[in-house]
């Protein structure tokens, strides 16, 4: 009987589905991919400051936002001469038709209010011009001297609201600043904002430093340094400037990198002709060996969830990439292409592993999925090496060295950044030659 009731109800339900009407549907496959056109008019000003001075600050903020968004390659700020509307205040409603007329897809409206001579309140609104919708609005109060960082944060917010991913403008880059002749190269640790501003040297250059890496909390940098001709892994505290050697290992240690939670350090140690991967708990200083092979296992990098590690090894005869669990088990080779693979780095968003590839006498920067599929080379050169991810996993930064000149003098080394799609490669301007960059986490997430 229950079956009958069920059957009757089912039949009745199916009968009702007859009311459902077929809707005309159209498939759109593929799209164009161009920078998004954005209107960024001057921010209006008010408050306890001469109008000209306030306008100057507002202009500088707009310039930084424009520079950030443009450098990402995803946005194109429209020429301000074409704007048909200017805003007198943050409450002014946009004339969407006017912005549509110049093909602006998004509009950033802002206002700077001088609460006092040293304190400013910045208000910003982001509009979808075609949908005539406000996408984002925010107000922040900052010290007047902090206008640059505030501008980066606004650019990050715009980036995040449009792309759906965290921005990377409020970040810093640590790198190796190189000076001097080829045979007596001085390599110092240096740090700067991601746009090249606020540059400073962290070490004096007496000892050679290599492979700097940020800790997730941005307070420390780990790197390898030759002290008395012995390579060791060090920790550098950014705020205090203090540096300390990590552990007392019998052999040389190198290629350090923090775990995603910042509590562990993973590195390689070479001893008795073997190089294996070790993990050190920074809280307890307990060391654990993760690989045991007669080959060279190096360049370890954690997955963002900390459960897996990618590294390169020549255990198969040539340098290839391998993935293993964080405890050293389930080692699996993931690269099978021609040539050699090195310096793997797991993307912060987990979807790619970036690497350096050497094949046919050329160097490449590439990405592949963590299971080894979908290898894609996105930069190529005489020498391109050491990729590092932006904190949102969208941009890859690396260094490029020009070929030597006729006299055999090595070419200059420069830092470049490229979008993961392979487009929008741009050079990061540094005061001296630069190599081995490392990208910090987002400062505002600290």
């Amino acid at each position: 009987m229950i079956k009958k009731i069920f059957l009757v109800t089912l039949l009745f339900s199916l009968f009702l589905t007859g009311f459902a009407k077929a809707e005309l549907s159209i498939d759109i496959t593929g799209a164009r991919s161009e920078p998004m056109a954005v209107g960024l008019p001057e921010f209006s000003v008010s408050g306890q400051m001469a109008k000209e001075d306030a306008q100057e600050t507002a202009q500088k903020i707009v310039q930084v936002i424009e520079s950030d968004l443009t450098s990402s390659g995803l946005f194109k700020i429209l020429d301000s001469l074409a704007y048909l509307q200017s805003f007198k205040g943050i409450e002014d409603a946009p004339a969407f038709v006017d912005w549509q007329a110049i093909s602006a897809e998004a509009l950033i409206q802002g206002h700077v209010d001088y609460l006092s001579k040293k304190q400013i309140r910045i208000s910003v609104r982001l509009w979808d011009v075609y949908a005539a919708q406000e996408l984002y609005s925010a107000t922040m109060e900052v010290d007047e001297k902090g206008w640059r960082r505030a501008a980066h944060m606004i650019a990050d917010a715009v980036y995040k609201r449009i792309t759906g991913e965290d921005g990377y403008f409020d970040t810093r880059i640590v790198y190796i600043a190189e000076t001097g002749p080829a045979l007596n190269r001085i390599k110092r640790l240096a740090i700067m904002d991601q746009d090249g501003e606020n540059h400073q040297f962290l070490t004096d250059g007496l000892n050679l430093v290599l492979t700097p890496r940020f800790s997730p909390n941005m307070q420390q940098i780990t790197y390898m340094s030759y002290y008395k001709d012995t390579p060791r892994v060090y920790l550098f505290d950014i705020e205090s400037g203090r540096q300390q050697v990590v552990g007392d290992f019998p052999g040389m240690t190198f290629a350090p990198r923090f775990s995603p939670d910042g509590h562990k350090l993973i590195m390689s140690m070479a001893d008795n002709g073997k190089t294996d991967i070790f993990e050190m708990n920074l809280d307890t200083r307990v060391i654990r060996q993760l690989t045991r092979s007669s080959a060279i296992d190096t360049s370890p990098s954690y997955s963002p969830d900390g459960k897996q590690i990618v590294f390169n090894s020549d255990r198969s005869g040539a340098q290839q990439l391998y993935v293993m669990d964080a405890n050293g088990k389930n080692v699996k080779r993931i690269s099978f292409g021609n040539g050699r693979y090195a310096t793997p780095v797991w993307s912060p968003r987990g979807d790619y592993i970036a690497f350096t590839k050497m094949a046919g006498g050329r160097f490449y920067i590439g990405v592949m999925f963590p299971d080894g599929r979908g290898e894609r080379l996105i930069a190529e050169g005489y020498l391109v090496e050491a990729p590092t991810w932006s904190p949102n996993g969208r941009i890859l930064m690396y260094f490029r060295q020009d070929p030597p000149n006729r006299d055999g003098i090595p070419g200059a080394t420069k830092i470049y950044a490229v979008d993961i799609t392979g487009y929008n490669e741009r050079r990061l301007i540094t005061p001296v030659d630069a190599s081995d960059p490392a990208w910090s986490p987002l400062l505002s997430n600290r």
Partner: protein
Amino acid sequence: MGLRLSFFMRLRHCPFLFKTVQAAFDHMPIVFSLLLHFFAVFLLTYDFSSAHQPEVVSVPMFVVDLSQVKIAEMTNLPPKLIPTAAKKETKKSVRTSAYSKASAKNSVQPETRGGKAGTSGGKKSSSAALENDLNKLLKSVTAPQKQPESAASVQPPANSIKNTGNQGGGETDDPFKTLLASVDGIKSGMGYADAHTAAEVNPDEIVTEGIEGGQGGSYMQELSVSEKDMIGIKLRECWNLDAGVRGVHNMLIEIRVFLNKDGTVKDAKILNKTKYNKDTAYRSVAESARRAVYICDKKKEDSPFKIFPKNYEQSYDTWKTLLLRFNPFDGGVI
């Protein structure tokens, strides 16, 4: 309880229903669950947006056999295309005049016609109704009439009639010549009528007027594959996608577009709101797809949606909502 008993008493004459209802009462939780399921299925499947609208007759591809086309007096053309009363009358009178002129020539009555072109002395003599028709014809046809006259290839009937009339005074006795003149008159009359009709009537009207099932008729033909492709291609050109968004390879964005009768976009809603609210990458791609709809809409006459009022104006109910499925990577990024 009493109500329940009397209800059962009535049902006892129908054993199946009686047992079904009895079992239903015995298994209330299951029945309640089934009813809830049924309600859920109903909610999921019923299209509330069109509940108050008349059901559109859905007819598959309709092939018009030209040999079977019936020219009807009543037309199912959309209001915009229905000729005004005066215009209709004009067309009718054009046909009548062509026929009547030919008939007049056939009957060879030169003595009843005046000497001027198209003068319809014969009609004047026939009846008051025809006279009215001719007056209307003269009013409405005066301007176009001159055009065929000047054209070398088309001989206005008036001339032939005139000639016939002129000759008719002395040569009406020659039946062969009369016949030839009549045939000329018919030919030129028809030519005149055709030329005139073509000049006056919009080609679209000629094609669609009164043809049951023809374009613009009461049944909407299925949107052709090429038309669908055209809409898809135009939307693709409007869709500016950030190709590096996380997970973009596996995304499918569905947007329901609500169109006005003139093909402009009334609203565009992103479906799958749960994912939209939870997944910022999905939201980004979905918003770019919605923006594509609006950008295309702003292209005015080049909007992909303009094809609907243009070709399917009568079937507004079938295209007033569209489901657009945006698939970022099947077709590649251009």
